[in-house]
């Protein structure tokens, strides 16, 4: 160990080679997955042979898969609305109000991000069963919306810290009421963190599986549809849909990155996790 560290600190080239290997490890599975989505010979087998687009053609005609995509889009959209509608006031409250249990509230909100998904999923299952609700896309939406409030709160709280209070003060002094001030001054100033959080919540909800696993009713979300097919066997069609998901996640990330760069110059994707680490 000591020897390795010694080598690494003296010789940054060895270190860059190691970093390259780590990158290879992180990306190899994704690259392989994409390559085999064009493989006529199936999900495995080296070398890949017989380039084909037929898995994508099969995917295009797969009604059940697209139903689940539609379900996921609806869930993610609604979860995004819930998280924002609660995350924005929560961030304002954390920034401006003092109330009993403030620390507890902060930690509780962050908990679903750090706890294994199974614990949050089961706890919510017990709640919904206790309330006599049938499991459906609605229960999944409520679960995602709640679990992801932390993302909205963290991003918007950070935005509020940078906000110039004088603007709001001026608005209030000039006779606008709190609602008008919020609507015309606070909210427009928070536009970018809100859009950034919305994008992230949407992506995370689209991918979420551990909590959904316990709250699922008759209709599948996309990850659960893929999951149920994996239990039956693997086909390159799953590689194809995974590639499509990857491309869309990538697009969302690039968009997110641009927004962040606009707001702060120094973009920090994953700030929620760092925040979670520091708050807990």
């Amino acid at each position, binding site marked *: 160990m000591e020897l390795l560290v010694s080598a690494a600190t003296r010789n940054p080239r060895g270190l860059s080679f190691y970093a390259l290997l780590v990158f290879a490890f992180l990306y190899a599975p994704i690259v392989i997955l994409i390559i*085999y989505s064009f493989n006529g010979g199936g999900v*495995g087998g080296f070398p890949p042979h017989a380039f084909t687009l037929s898995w994508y053609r099969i995917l295009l005609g797969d009604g059940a898969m697209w139903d689940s995509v539609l379900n996921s889009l609806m869930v993610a959209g609604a979860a995004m609305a819930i998280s924002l509608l609660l995350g924005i006031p929560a961030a304002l409250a954390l920034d*401006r*109000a003092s109330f009993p249990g403030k620390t507890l509230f902060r930690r509780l909100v962050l908990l679903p991000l750090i706890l294994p998904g199974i614990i949050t999923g089961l706890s919510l299952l017990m709640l919904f069963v206790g309330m006599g609700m049938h499991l459906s896309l609605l229960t999944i939406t409520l679960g995602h919306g709640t679990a992801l409030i932390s993302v909205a709160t963290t991003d918007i709280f950070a935005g509020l810290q940078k906000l110039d209070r004088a603007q709001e003060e001026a608005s209030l002094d000039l006779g606008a009421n709190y609602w008008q001030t919020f609507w015309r001054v606070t909210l427009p100033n928070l536009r970018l963190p809100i859009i950034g959080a919305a994008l992230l919540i949407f992506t995370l909800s689209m991918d979420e599986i*551990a909590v959904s696993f316990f709250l699922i009713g008759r209709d599948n979300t996309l990850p659960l549809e893929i999951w149920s097919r994996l239990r039956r066997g693997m086909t390159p069609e799953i590689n194809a849909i995974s590639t499509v998901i990857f491309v869309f996640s990538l697009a969302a990330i690039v968009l997110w990155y641009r927004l962040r760069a606009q707001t702060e110059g120094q973009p920090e994707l994953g700030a929620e996790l760092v925040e979670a680490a520091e708050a*807990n």
Partner: protein
Amino acid sequence: MFSRAYKTAVTVPPLLWVAVFLLIPYALLFCYSFWTVSSSQTIVHNWNLGNYAELLRVHVYFQTLLRSMWIAARVMLFALLLGYPLAYYLSFHAGARKNLLYQLVIIPLWVSYLVRAYAWKTILGSDGVLNTLLQYVHLTRHPLEFLLYSPFAVVLTLTHIYTPFAFLPIYASLEHIPRNLVEASHDLGASPLQTFWRVILPLSIPGVLAGATFAFVLSLGDFLAPLLLGGPSGIMISNIVVSLFGAAYNWPLGAAISLCMLLLVVGLLFLSERLEKKWSYS
């Protein structure tokens, strides 16, 4: 500057929501763990410690928990061994490419968990990419069967999934180290190795602790990777909980196991927070 009404308006809705959809559910988990299931498969609300006695009596629960912790510990170790040097390289040696490389580490983090676990399944299977590659270059004659459906597959996949989680806080803590401390160490005659051991590493301990906690906690509770890649020898504690909530229909016992897991996790978070505070310099 903000009136009482304003503060109430922004505080009460999120508080109520979080109470109903987070506090009550976690409290329910607690309650369920003291209830029982009757022979007619209904939940009986007679408070007792039977489920916890069961956990102590039947060894398979404790053994599986230990195995899960062992898997999680290995994931944590590998995630640190991959994540720390990477973070160190990015923070101190990457130069102008720093931001780009940072994004490159983060991208896999937002790529679907399931997609990544599935990718490993296509690589490790007996007809998978790796086995057929090894046979293609004549390194092996028969597929290596231990690659898939083993704790190895679970550790490998979870390491892949959680390395960026370990990387993030480590990188953040390295970035927070004032560069003039490092320069001072050099100027005072310390070798790069001494600077690393005596200045950089101690100052990055809070990040290491946070990263280690993430990797350990998140992999400890995982049940999808074991289901997909673990086989019978890769079963983890959450898989038992899943079956207790499904076919076995014993929610109270499942809740008791979940609560033990929750307490373990919260305990670890608390411990790592205390240690982080102790090690942080600001």
